């Protein structure tokens, strides 16, 4: 009897139950879906608790502090604790300090990242010899797309003609993007059906 319960049908039963509970939403909202939804939200929030405790508090603060005597880690730890000042109205403003530190440094990184890592290489690779149909189309496509998305001037006259070319290119790209989006969403469904039919019910190999 105990061997029966080690069969994948039973060991994967909780997984299959929650999978089917989520799918039940396709028919309509129901208590099984609501139950699964709240279990998911609770587990996700709990995941962050366990993860941050181990990855940050234990590995980045406690271990360097106790094993390497790196007292400086107490500064970011204090800043991190200061984030929770938000829940105390009298000192709530103090959470702005660690927030400003994170957002300010992220902004500094982003400034360089976007210009050096995105704009320069992309612009550089658009400066192409116009010796093939592909290169001509690439250059026209990039320029007309940039002009189409430039909304500070009305799209009239020569600007309007170029913007019209731009929107044609944009329609082609969005059509291609739609095709890939369908592919992506469908893949996720295939994965779940494969789990139900192959891993759980063993109806296929």
């Amino acid at each position: 009897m105990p061997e029966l319960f080690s069969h994948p049908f039973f060991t994967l039963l909780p997984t299959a139950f929650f999978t089917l509970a989520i799918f039940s939403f396709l028919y309509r909202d129901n208590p099984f879906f609501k139950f699964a939804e709240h279990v998911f939200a609770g587990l996700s929030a709990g995941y962050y608790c366990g993860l941050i405790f181990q990855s940050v508090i234990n590995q980045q603060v406690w271990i360097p502090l106790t094993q390497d005597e790196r007292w400086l880690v107490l500064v970011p730890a204090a800043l991190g604790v200061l984030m929770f000042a938000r829940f105390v109205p009298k000192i709530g403003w103090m959470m702005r300090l660690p927030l400003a530190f994170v957002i300010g440094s992220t902004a500094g990184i982003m400034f360089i990242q976007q210009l050096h890592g995105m704009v320069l290489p992309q612009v550089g690779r658009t400066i192409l010899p116009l010796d093939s149909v592909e290169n001509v189309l690439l250059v026209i496509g990039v320029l007309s797309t940039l002009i189409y998305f430039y909304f500070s001037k009305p799209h009239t006259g020569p600007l309007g003609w170029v913007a019209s070319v731009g929107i044609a290119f944009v329609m082609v790209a969005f059509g291609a993007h739609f095709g890939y989006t369908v592919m992506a969403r469908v893949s996720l469904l295939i994965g779940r059906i494969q789990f139900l039919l192959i891993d759980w019910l063993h109806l296929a190999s």
Partner: protein
Amino acid sequence: MKSRLPVIVAFLAGVLMIVAFFGRGAVVDRVAEEALAWQTIVAGFALLLGVGSIVRVHWHRLATGHPDRIYSLVLLICLTVMGGSGVLFGIGSGTLFDSLFERIQAPMMSTMFSVLAFFIASAAYRAFRARNVLSAILLLTAVIVMLGRIPMGQYIYHALPDWANWIMMVPSVAVQRGIIIGAALGAASMALRVILGIERTYLGQGG
């Protein structure tokens, strides 16, 4: 003070990151390295803020007799079990934390997103109409790419995979590049506004 000090902190932090990119001095590099490590620690604590908010909301539901309070109880129990097991027994392979993730949380997350396949199919049926030349171009391109990217496509017409490749590598790259350049310039200007203190929405009310 309550608004000015955070703006000064944001400015100094942002300028440090920019100077570190250009500067090659040992002091600048060392300070930037330390700041980056600090940022990862502070960002980790920030993630727990969301957990605190969830607990507050659902505890309030329990306390005030909300009609869905039984679900709030389920949520809080799951949070406690998952969080507690991670804190007390670790998060590596073979732990309760890992088992709950692999057997329940991850499959549910996959299933939630897999439901989008139905919605996109339904949307394609109801809304995807060739009303004019431009929408017809969009429709035609989508069909070529969808057929060109599946194994059956080459049996429907031998050139479909090549057409799909060409569409992806020429007109699609051109437009994506235009969007990347535009978005990157916008993001860089927003970052500059934050550093210079012009953009202060992150400070919340009174900022």
